[in-house]
């Protein structure tokens, strides 16, 4: 059961990572990264149960908070930066 959940979460992580690399805007990357962080929390929680030692859930807790912090920090950066500069599509690559 936990193995199935772990594999599902890993597949999800791969898909969101694809979006994070594809873009096209920075907000898409940020959305994918935020979603990826939530999946990492789930992965660590499920993995702890899978190995039968669920003592390390504190780490998942830390991740959940750090993930939120990172997203909000980047968004704050946008708010203080020149708003027009943020939506440009990356022209090369």
């Amino acid at each position, binding site marked *: 059961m936990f193995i199935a959940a772990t594999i599902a979460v890993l597949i999800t992580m791969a898909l969101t990572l694809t979006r994070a*690399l594809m873009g096209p805007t920075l907000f898409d990357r940020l959305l994918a990264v935020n979603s990826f962080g939530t999946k990492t929390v789930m992965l660590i929680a499920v*993995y702890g149960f899978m190995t039968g030692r669920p003592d390390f859930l504190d*780490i998942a807790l830390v991740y959940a908070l750090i993930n939120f912090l990172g997203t909000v920090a*980047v968004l704050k950066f946008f708010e*203080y930066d020149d708003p027009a500069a943020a939506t440009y599509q990356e022209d090369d690559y």
Partner: protein
Amino acid sequence: METLVVAVLLTFLVVIAIGIIVLRDLLGAVILLGVYSLVAAGAFVVMDAVDVAFTEAAVGSGISTILFLGALSFTSHKQKPRGHDSVAALVFVVITGGVLIYGTLDMPYYGSAESPAQTHPELAVRFIEESGSEVGPPNIVTSVLGSYRGYDTLGETLVVFAAGIAVLSILGLKRRRPEDEVLEDAPGDTARGASDNQQAYKE
């Protein structure tokens, strides 16, 4: 199963690293560096290094992302769209990597319990067997960090302190200049930094 999770996470790391190389936008690269740290920390959990995972998540993914964002807000987040992909650099990197991979061929395999690092009687074996009675806390990493290698930790704290002083003295110097000079010197993007300084003066 454990090995599979590690392998998949390692593959994610490689993909993210290639993304960082290819991406021309600095803000995107910083975001991806944060994810890179997060994935690495997840892999540390799978490899039993829970304390390292804690630190890497908080410091690598949290603090360093915020430091990079701060630096970018004082400079600009657009890398110049010129091609710098030099063949010489690529050749150098491939040769170095090839030599390093040749060097790994006689390394102990992943997870082997017979490798010299695992069987040295004065290090790992002693820490695992004796630290519970010699130092006390059940977490062996804490025992080693605080007791067996205490001076090392003191040195680390000194380094962080010195870095803090260095950052303050590099960035704080301009605050002592007269206000008008700061405004004249500041070209383009740093105008906002200068106005921050002005606010600091008023407060």
